[in-house]
């Protein structure tokens, strides 16, 4: 695919250009192309959603964005600068602005540390302010995520899953980051708590001017929270655009299938029967299909799809897609995606 957006946008807080991340398999005999040529910008103050199924490489992208993983090729610019070009000390300092939160709050919290101690930890490591100032900051962070004062003295096992995830968010907030990568942050939470936590994210963004990269497999979550969404399949973006656009007028057959697969609590009278159920399994990222990676499961695949890699093109304003036939009306999504409740 060609790199169409070679010039980073001015308002981009993160610019990703032709990002590739590869791993060795455990027997060191093959290379997994976890992320294979991805381009996008994250705009300041927005929530950028990345949706994909397991093995699509979305988590790898998330880690690469905050340099928990080193890209094998390509560039990731933070505010126009390449963090990898920074000195060690500068890099550590720079890192505070770009945080990541994971799915499992249990893994992120030390069971033997009080909540307050856990929230204080990043401040202490960064040696910010004196002890009193740090503690005040930590308590503010806890308050901001809606946890009462007395929670600071508790231990993780005394908290519910949602409360723990709030603690993790508070901890990320202490260093006043510009951007937070949220990797499946509500996947482990109960339905009813999910709403609360998502509301919290929205509040924080409004109040603190945060930018989010929201990584999830859950269509409902991503479409609720993000302005723009990228759809990922087998290490590549297949579609990127404003959430409403992607949800209501998807361009890529995979997006269409994904939207159609989402079970909806609709009564039978409101359901339409032409649901698209993809056949087969996701191919191996070790040896992905030639041409378009989705072609092996695509209901509209043509011989061309095997021969040529589809171009990453801006088919509609701000709406990108990688499909040879996305502009053909015959599989245009509009009628198959279904109505929203």
């Amino acid at each position: 695919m060609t790199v169409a957006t070679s010039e980073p946008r001015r308002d981009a807080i993160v610019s990703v250009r032709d990002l590739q991340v590869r791993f060795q398999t455990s027997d060191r005999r093959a290379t997994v192309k976890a992320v294979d040529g991805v381009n996008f910008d994250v705009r300041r103050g927005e929530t950028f959603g990345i949706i994909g199924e397991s093995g699509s490489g979305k988590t790898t992208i998330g880690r690469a964005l905050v340099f928990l993983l080193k890209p094998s090729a390509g560039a990731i610019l933070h505010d126009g600068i390449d963090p990898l070009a920074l000195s060690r000390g500068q890099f550590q300092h720079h890192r505070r602005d770009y945080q990541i939160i994971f799915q499992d709050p249990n893994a992120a919290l030390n069971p033997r540390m009080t909540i307050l101690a856990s929230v204080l930890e990043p401040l202490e490591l960064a040696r910010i302010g004196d002890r009193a100032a740090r503690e005040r900051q930590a308590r503010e962070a806890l308050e901001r995520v809606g946890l009462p004062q007395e929670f600071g003295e508790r231990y993780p096992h005394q908290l519910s899953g949602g409360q723990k995830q709030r603690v993790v968010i508070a901890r990320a907030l202490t260093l006043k980051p510009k951007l937070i990568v949220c990797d499946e942050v509500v996947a482990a939470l109960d339905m009813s708590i999910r709403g609360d936590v998502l509301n919290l994210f929205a509040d924080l963004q409004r109040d603190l001017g945060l930018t989010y990269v929201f990584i999830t497999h859950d269509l409902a979550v991503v479409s609720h929270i993000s302005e723009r969404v990228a759809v990922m399949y087998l290490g590549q973006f297949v579609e990127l655009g404003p959430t409403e656009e992607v949800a209501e007028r998807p361009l890529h057959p995979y997006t269409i299938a994904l939207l159609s697969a989402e079970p909806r609590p609709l009564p039978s009278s409101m359901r339409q029967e032409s649901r698209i159920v993809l056949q087969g399994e996701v191919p191996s990222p070790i040896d992905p299909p030639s041409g378009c990676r989705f072609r092996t499961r695509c209901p509209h695949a043509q011989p061309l799809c095997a021969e040529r890699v589809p171009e990453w093109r801006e088919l509609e304003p701000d709406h990108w897609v990688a499909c040879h036939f996305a502009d053909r009306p015959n599989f245009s999504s509009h009628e198959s995606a279904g109505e929203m409740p």
Partner: protein
Amino acid sequence: MGAGPPAQRKAEGARDDARPLLSVRGLGVRFKTAQGIWQATRRIDFDVAPGERIGIVGESGCGKTITGLSILRLLPGNFAGLDGRILFDGTDLASCSARQMRAIRGKRIAMIFQEPMSALDPVFTVGHQIAETLRVHSDVSYEEARAKTLEMLRRVGIASPERRIDDYPHQLSGGMRQRVMIAASLICGPELLIADEPTTALDVTVQAQILELLRDISETSKTALMLITHDLGVVAETCTRMITMYAGEVIEDATVDEALVRPLHPYTSGLLRSLPHLSPRHGRLPSIPGRCRRLPRCRPAAASAPAARTQ
């Protein structure tokens, strides 16, 4: 639905069979905990007609999984006691001997679970595990069992079953594992399949495949399906009737259409409203106050309010 005897329920079921396949009456389950006896579920009544697909929905901890497990009497080690009756085809499973119970498990009532990875024995081939159900319940030769297993693998949509039959679970994807689980549960042709969150751990496109498979199998082989899930969408896609549980009790029992269009119970409507769905991205999600099952949060009614809809 309350304690209405099966005869009174004629109007409701999709089928008009003489009597329900499964009839649960006054079911309650207790567990031993460090704090004493905990009543996990109480006064649960519902029926499943032959071939019917019902969904049991509720949040985690509401007792839906325990209800599923108690039908097969597969309750965990700290199980302390069970009240009520579980009438299956006229037999009260609550008072069956262990031997009778074993003869029913897998043969007449099958069950599949959420995590297809951990629900399969990692050190046996999938073929072995599918055939095993058949072999414990009937006297078949190795060849017969293998042939039947291949047929089942094909039936649940596994490509090149001849190759997959000798694979181990870790060599399969999550979706394939769940297909294997389904194959193993259906090989004896059970009358009832209890599926406990069968797609929760799966990706959405794979979930669609599995749900389609379950619906298809239930329709073609007339197997009743009891689908336990927290996802109203899954129920809407798959089932005809929906039972909502909250704090260990059944609070609503209605057809899916009715329940979704006019949820009578505030909890059901709360659940529906809290869904962060595709369109309403502007605005806040309504939150359901409280989350501990012991804290009543149902606004107009207490948690122990009787089921809102009866026949």
